[in-house]
């Protein structure tokens, strides 16, 4: 079993759960978003929109929780062996991911608010609109939402590519420490 909280060598169960839950949610939301905008108007499209919005709001809540969790936990440092420019890239990439995890749902929330559509999260409760009704604001938010989407695709590609490079090429524990597996380092410390 891995600990709930982070240690200096690996991500705890809390951080891992949030990471993989959001990974699944973000992937689902992106596919939903892409499919729904290409559907003809109708009930099916409405239902996918509804699901996409509910999922987006859930991801917004999760990223807030995740930032809080990150703040009250230690962050496992990057390996000493990492060159400076790669450290810089990793930090910039992760900041970009957090920014996009916030900006994607927020811009979507603004699109819905500017259209003055009600937003009921998974049929459970209704949340208030962020902005007054405005067609021009809705257009700006739509453009941003699409731009952030492509930005997200780019940064996620680098994120996943980087993790795979660390695992298969550099053969370090960067990917393993985000997986629910026993780590060589904690085996030593526990036994």
């Amino acid at each position, binding site marked *: 079993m891995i600990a709930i909280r982070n240690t200096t060598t690996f991500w705890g169960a809390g951080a891992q759960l949030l990471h993989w839950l959001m990974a699944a949610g973000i992937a689902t939301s992106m596919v939903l978003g892409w499919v729904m905008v290409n559907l003809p108007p*109708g*009930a*099916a499209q*409405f*239902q996918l*929109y*509804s699901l996409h*919005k509910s999922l987006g709001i859930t991801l917004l809540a999760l990223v807030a929780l995740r930032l809080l969790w990150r703040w009250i936990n230690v962050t496992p440092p990057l390996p000493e062996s990492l060159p400076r420019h790669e450290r810089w890239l990793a930090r910039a990439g992760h900041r970009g991911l957090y920014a996009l995890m916030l900006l994607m749902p927020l811009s979507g929330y603004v699109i819905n608010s500017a*259209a*003055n*559509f*009600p*937003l*009921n999260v998974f*049929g459970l409760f*209704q949340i208030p609109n962020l902005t007054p*009704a405005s*067609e021009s604001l809705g257009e700006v938010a739509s453009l941003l939402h699409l731009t952030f989407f492509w930005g997200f695709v780019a940064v996620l590609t680098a994120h996943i590519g980087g993790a795979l490079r660390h695992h298969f090429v550099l053969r370090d524990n960067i990917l393993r420490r985000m997986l629910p597996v026993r780590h060589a380092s904690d085996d030593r410390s526990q036994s």
Partner: protein
Amino acid sequence: MIDATPNALRRRLLMALGLAGLASGPVGAATEWSILHDDSRLGFEATQQGGEFEGRFESFSADMRFSADDLAASRFDVRIDTGSVETGSSQRDSALPNDDWFNVDVFPQATYVADTLRATDNGYAAEGTLTIRNNSHPVTLPFTWEVDGDRARMDGAVVIDRTRFGVGQGDWSDPSVAGHEVRVVVDLTLSKAE
């Protein structure tokens, strides 16, 4: 030769009363009221994707006859311009006049005619017929009516099923897209007609 059967007599009597009525005003003249549109609202509450929103009809007119002490002669006759629907969302408002919803081009008006008004424990009830898109169904509207000098306030609300009136057809009849139940809210300020 005078036809003296009871039915004929009743007919003559009614005709005489009718003529008398014409001379002195409408039959059993209940007070006639005109709606002060600036202080009145004919609205509704509905749901879209499970979320609530409100709307209203900007344009409607009505013949309102109401006297608490002469309910038998009281009567509402309301005409609503369906194309004047406004819900604060340009996307929704551009969809509602279309074929699947109000089909404004073919059915520019909805009507509500209530001939039977009665007192209830909480106020009054109007038993009438609501017609939208040529679909007519009985709708009983409970309401309160408070008179203050020459002014009156009418407040009422009734839940109807939009699909019975053919509003939101095809894919839109799915309740997860837009709920079937719509609460119609009548909130009028009236003044005694001259």
